[in-house]
C-alpha cells in the first residue's frame, strides 16, 4: 500500500515542475514589461562626478569653489557636417583646429565619444547650445572647474589636473579612470580622498539610436553623487594677500603660524602665480610656461627651499645652553680668543644681550661649552659625543626632521651628527674646531622657512609646538586630524625661555631689527643673515607677538636681500601688525617694502657643473632643471637674466592665451 505513495510523490514533483514552467512562461513569454525594460531599450551607465569640496579661510571666507563648465564631446561616425565654417565660427576655433581635433577623435574611436573642446563656461554653453542642435554627433557633458576667489596661495592649495598615465597605473584600488581629475599638489593632493567625494552612478535608457529615453526604473537603482568634504584652513585670506603684496618682486617665503594650535595663518611662496590659470582650458600651455619660468613659481619655497638659518639659530643654541646648564641667564662672553668675527656692539654680559646684539663669539662659546660638556679628555672623542648629544637636543625643535605638515614634498633639512662628519673626515678625525660654524647657524645646517616659523612658535609657547598644518577642520564636523592635536615637547623648561625672549624683544626694540618696530605691539624677534657663496646674503627674520599672549609666530625669508633687518624684519613686522590690529601704522615702511625690488639681485638657480668659473656663469643663459630637490636649485648659484623686469612675480601669462575663449 505504501508503494503506491510513489505516485503521490512523483505527482508532487511534476506539479512543482508544471507550476514553475507556468510561472516561467508568464515571466518570459506573456509578461512584456520585463523585455521592454531590458532589451529594446539598452541601459547605459552614466557616471556622475561630484563637486570637489570647497576650501575656506579661518573666518569662513571662501577660498576655493567650483564653477560648472561644459565639455563638448564628439562621436565621429555620427557627425554630418554641411557648414564647417559656421560651426567653427560658433565655437570660435580655426578650421585647422577643427580638422586636428576631429582627426584626434577619429583616431581614438569612431563610435565612442571623445573630448572635442573642454571646459566651456556656462555663458558660452548657453550661447551655443541651441545652434549645436543642428550638428549631429556632438554632445555636452557637465563638468566643473576649480575657481579661486583670490589670486593667491597657488602652491599651498595646489592644482587639480587630469590623472596621468603613471598615476592611473599606480593606483592601489581602481578608482580613477582615464580623464578623471586628481589633486596634483598642495592641499588638493594631500586631501584628495576627502575632497573628491563619491561618484554617483545613473542608469539611463536609450533606444537603438542612442537617444535618451529617461531614467531606468525611475532612477530607483541610481546612486547619488556625494560632494566632497569641505576643508577649513587656518589661513587668513586678507593677511595672506597683504603678505603676497609685500613679497612682490622678491624671491622668498613667509610662513605665519598660530602658536597655540599650529594652524598656518599665511604661507607665501614668492614669486607666485594666479591659481586660476591652472584651472582653465589652457592648463597645459600655462603649466608649461610656469615650469619654464626661471624663478620657479611652482616650487613651494616655504616647505621645499633650504637655507642656512644664520643667526636665528642662536636662539636654539641659547635655549639648549640654558637647559643643559652650561650657561646661566647672567653668563657673559667677550670677543677675545674667538675665530668668528663680529660687529661692533655693546658688551654682551647676559644671554638676553647676546641675543639682542646677535653676538657671534657669544654663541661660539655657548656651543663650545655644549660640545665639551662631557669632560672627556680626548678632544676628538669629546667632540663626537658632544655633537650627538647636541644633535638630539636640537632635533626636538624639528631641525633636520620632517615636521609632518599636510603639504607634499616637505624638505627634511640637514642637522649634522657624528656620522655625518665621520663620512667627511673619518671617525675621531674631527673636533670642535672643524664644526664651530654650526654655532651661529652656518656650516652644514639646512632648514626650511617652515621650520624656522615653527621655532618661533616653540619660543612663543615657551617649550612646545603643534605640527604646523594648513587644514584645521575636515567636513561639516570640522574634524581635525589627531596628529595635529598632539603636543610636541622640546624638553626645554619654560623658565629658560624668558632670558631668550627678553633678548628677542631687545632685538626689535633696540637691536638688529630696531628699524621695523611696531608701535603698540611688543614683538619678540631675531634677525638672521644666511650666507651663501654665490650671491648676496639672504635676509631672515623670525618673530612672534604679542609677547605675553602670542597669537602669531612668523618666519620671513627674502633671498639675496642682505641682512635680516633690511627686508625680512620689516615685512614680518608689517604682517604681524596687519594680523593683530587689521591695519598698518608705519605707512612709510610699508611703502618702502612694497616698492622694494630685489629681482635684479636674485641669483637664479641652475644646475652647476663642476669646474665652471664664476665669470663664465655670468654670461650663460639660464636653463633650469625641473627638479626641486636638486641642491643646485635650492642654493642660488647663477646671475639674473638679461631682462629681469619681464620675469617679475606674480607671474602673469600672455594675454592672448587667457582671452582665447569663445
Amino acid at each position, binding site marked *: 500500500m*505504501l*508503494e503506491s*505513495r*510513489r505516485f*503521490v*510523490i*512523483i505527482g508532487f*514533483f*511534476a506539479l*512543482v*515542475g508544471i*507550476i*514553475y*514552467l507556468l*510561472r*516561467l*512562461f508568464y*515571466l*518570459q*513569454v506573456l*509578461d512584456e*514589461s*520585463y*523585455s521592454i*525594460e*531590458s*532589451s529594446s531599450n*539598452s*541601459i547605459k*551607465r552614466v557616471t556622475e562626478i561630484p563637486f570637489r569640496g570647497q576650501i575656506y579661510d579661518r573666518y569662513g571666507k571662501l577660498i576655493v569653489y567650483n564653477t560648472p563648465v561644459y565639455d563638448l564631446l564628439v562621436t565621429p561616425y555620427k557627425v554630418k557636417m554641411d557648414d564647417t565654417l559656421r560651426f567653427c565660427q560658433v565655437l570660435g576655433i580655426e578650421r585647422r583646429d577643427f580638422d586636428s581635433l576631429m582627426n584626434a577623435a577619429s583616431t581614438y574611436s569612431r563610435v565612442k565619444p571623445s573630448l572635442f573642446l573642454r571646459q566651456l563656461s556656462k555663458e558660452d554653453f548657453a550661447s551655443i547650445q541651441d545652434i549645436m542642435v543642428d550638428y549631429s554627433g556632438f554632445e555636452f557633458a557637465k563638468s566643473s572647474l576649480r575657481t579661486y576667489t583670490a589670486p593667491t596661495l597657488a602652491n599651498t592649495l595646489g592644482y587639480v589636473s587630469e590623472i596621468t598615465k603613471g598615476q592611473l597605473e599606480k593606483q592601489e584600488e581602481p578608482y580613477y579612470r582615464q580623464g578623471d581629475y586628481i589633486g596634483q599638489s598642495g592641499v588638493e593632493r594631500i586631501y584628495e580622498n576627502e575632497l573628491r567625494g563619491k561618484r554617483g552612478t545613473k*542608469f539611463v535608457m536609450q533606444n537603438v539610436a542612442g537617444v535618451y529615453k529617461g531614467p531606468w526604473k525611475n532612477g*530607483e*537603482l541610481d546612486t547619488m553623487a556625494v560632494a566632497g568634504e569641505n576643508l577649513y584652513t587656518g589661513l587668513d585670506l586678507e593677511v595672506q594677500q597683504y603678505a603676497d603684496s609685500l613679497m612682490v618682486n622678491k624671491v622668498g617665503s613667509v610662513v605665519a603660524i598660530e602658536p597655540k594650535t599650529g594652524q598656518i595663518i599665511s604661507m607665501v611662496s614668492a614669486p607666485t602665480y594666479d591659481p586660476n590659470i591652472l584651472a582653465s582650458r589652457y592648463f597645459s600651455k600655462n603649466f608649461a610656461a610656469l615650469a619654464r619660468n626661471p624663478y620657479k613659481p611652482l616650487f613651494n619655497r616655504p616647505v621645499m627651499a633650504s637655507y642656512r638659518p644664520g643667526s636665528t639659530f642662536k636662539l636654539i643654541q641659547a635655549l639648549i645652553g640654558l637647559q643643559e646648564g652650561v650657561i646661566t641667564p647672567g653668563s657673559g662672553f667677550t670677543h677675545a680668543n674667538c675665530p668668528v668675527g663680529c660687529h661692533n656692539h655693546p658688551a654682551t654680559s647676559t644671554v638676553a644681550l647676546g641675543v639682542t646684539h646677535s653676538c657671534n663669539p657669544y654663541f661660539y662659546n655657548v656651543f663650545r661649552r655644549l660640545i665639551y660638556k662631557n669632560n672627556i679628555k680626548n678632544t676628538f672623542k669629546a667632540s663626537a659625543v658632544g655633537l650627538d648629544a647636541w644633535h638630539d637636543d636640537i632635533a626636538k625643535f624639528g631641525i633636520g626632521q620632517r615636521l609632518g605638515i599636510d603639504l607634499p614634498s616637505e624638505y627634511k633639512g640637514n642637522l649634522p651628527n657624528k656620522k655625518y662628519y665621520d663620512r667627511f673626515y673619518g671617525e675621531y678625525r674631527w673636533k670642535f674646531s672643524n664644526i664651530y660654524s654650526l654655532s651661529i647657524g652656518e656650516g652644514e645646517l639646512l632648514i626650511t622657512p617652515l621650520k624656522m616659523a615653527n621655532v618661533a612658535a616653540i619660543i612663543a609657547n615657551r617649550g612646545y609646538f603643534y605640527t604646523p598644518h594648513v587644514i584645521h577642520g575636515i567636513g561639516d564636523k570640522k574634524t581635525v586630524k589627531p596628529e595635529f592635536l598632539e603636543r610636541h615637547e622640546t624638553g626645554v623648561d619654560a623658565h629658560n625661555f624668558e632670558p631668550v625672549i627678553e633678548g628677542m624683544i631687545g632685538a626689535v626694540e633696540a637691536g638688529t631689527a630696531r628699524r621695523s618696530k611696531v608701535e603698540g605691539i611688543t614683538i619678540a624677534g631675531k634677525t638672521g643673515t644666511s650666507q651663501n657663496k654665490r650671491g648676496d646674503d639672504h635676509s631672515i627674520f623670525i618673530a612672534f607677538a604679542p609677547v605675553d599672549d602670542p597669537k602669531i609666530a612668523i618666519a620671513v625669508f627674502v633671498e639675496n636681500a642682505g641682512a635680516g633687518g633690511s627686508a625680512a624684519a620689516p615685512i614680518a613686522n608689517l604682517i604681524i601688525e596687519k594680523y593683530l590690529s587689521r591695519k598698518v601704522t608705519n605707512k612709510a615702511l610699508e611703502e618702502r617694502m612694497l616698492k622694494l625690488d630685489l629681482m635684479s639681485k636674485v641669483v637664479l638657480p641652475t644646475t652647476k657643473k663642476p669646474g665652471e668659473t664664476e665669470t663664465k656663469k655670468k654670461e650663460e643663459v639660464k636653463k633650469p632643471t625641473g627638479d626641486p630637490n636638486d641642491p643646485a636649485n635650492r642654493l642660488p648659484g647663477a646671475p639674473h637674466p638679461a631682462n629681469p623686469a619681464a620675469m617679475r612675480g606674480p607671474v602673469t601669462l600672455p594675454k592672448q592665451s587667457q582671452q582665447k575663449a569663445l
Partner: protein
Amino acid sequence: MAESKPITKNVDWMVVLIYIACLTIGWLNIYAAVYNPEAHTNMFDLSNNAGKQLMWIGTAALLIICILVIDYKFYETFSFVIYAVVIFLLVVVLFAGSNINGSRSWIKLGSFSLQPAEFSKLAVSLAISKYLSDPAISLNRKLKDYYPIMGIIALPAFLILLSNETGSMLVFASFAIVLYREGMPGFIPAIGMIGAALLIITLLFVKWYIAGAIIVIAGLVIWLMPVMTRRRGGLWATIIVAFVMIGIVFGVDFFMNNVLQKHQRGRIMVLLDPDSDPRGIGWNVIQSKIAIGSGGVWGKGFLQGTQTKFDFVPEQSTDFIFCTVGEEHGFLGTTIVVFLFVALISRLVVLAERQRSRFARVYGYCVAGIIFFHFLVNVGMTIGLMPVIGIPLPFFSYGGSSLWSFSVLLFIFLKIDAQRPFTLSRG
C-alpha cells in the same frame, strides 16, 4: 563472482547522462555569468569562477571513481561513523571556522575551504537509511520510532543553525518526503502545507478577516455535514480545527513580529510584495525576475545577457545562476533545466522503488528529496515564488563543496543501485 562484472554495465546511465548535462550547462552558464566582454574572460582561467568550477568538476570525477570502486556495503556499514565524523566537523567549524559572508561555516585548509554543512545532508541521509533498514521499525504505528529520526536530524540542524547557515538547515525539511514514503501518516504533511498556506494568507490579509472566513467555512462544513457525522463528534472536531486554525493565524502574526529576525521577516515579506523594499531585500528578487523575464522565448544568446553585465543580479554564479539561464537561453533554456530536474528526481524515485533493501530505497528517496528541495527553493526564489534563501542549485551553481556533496550523494546511490542484482531483499 558476479560482483566482478564491470560497474559500467549496471550503473543507471540515464541518471549519469542527466548529471553530465547539468554539469555542462551549469559550467557554461557560470562562464556567461562571470564573462566580461571588455576583458576577454577565459573559461579555463583558474582566476575566475568558470575556471575554478572546471577544476571542481575534475576533482568531482575523481571522487566518483573512488565511490564506484569502494564496496557498496561500506556505506551501509559505516553510516553512523560517517554521521559522527560530519557532526564532529560541524562542531569544529563552530570554533575554528572562518567567516565567509556572515556565516561561520567554512573550514579553511590553506587556500582551500570546505563547508561541512554541505556534507551533513549525506550524513543524515545515510544515518536515517541505516536506522530505517531495521524491519522492526514502523512509522505508521509507533510514535517512539520517530524519536531517533528526530534526533538524527535535530543534532546537525542545531549545529548548522549555530553557524548561521539557515539555508542549509531548511534542507532537512526534505526528509519529510522519505518519511511519508516509509509510512508517515498523510495528514502530517497535509497539516504542514495547510500551515504554510495559512502563513502566507495571514501575511497578505488582515487577520480578523481570515478568522471570520474560517468561522464562516466551519459553519458551512457543519451545516453541510451529514447529521450522523455531526452527532458522532464531527461538530466538535470541526470547531476545534477551526479554532486551531485561527490560533495559527494569530500565532503566525506573533511569530513574524516577535520571533523572526528582521532580515528573515524581510525575506518573507518580499516574497509577497517585492516592491515593498526595492533597494534592499527586494532587489535580488526584482533583478532576478527582470533578468529571467528579459530572456523571452529564445533568450538573448550565449554571453549576450545585458542584465547580467552590470552586476544587477547579485551572487550570479552561485545562488542566482538560474537567472543567467533564463536571460541568455529564454523560456527554451529554463524549460530544459526544469525538465532535467523533474526527470532526474523522478528517475531516482523509480530507481529507489526497485531496490531490494530498505536501506537502499530510503537512501534513494533521501537523495531525490534533497535534490528536489534545492530545486524547489532555488528556482522558486529566482522567479519570485519562494523567499530568498541562500541555497545552491544542484550541479549548476558555482562552488566546490556543493558540487562535491551532491556528486557524492548521487553516486553513492548509483553504486548501491548498480549492485542491486546481487543484493538480497530484507524487506
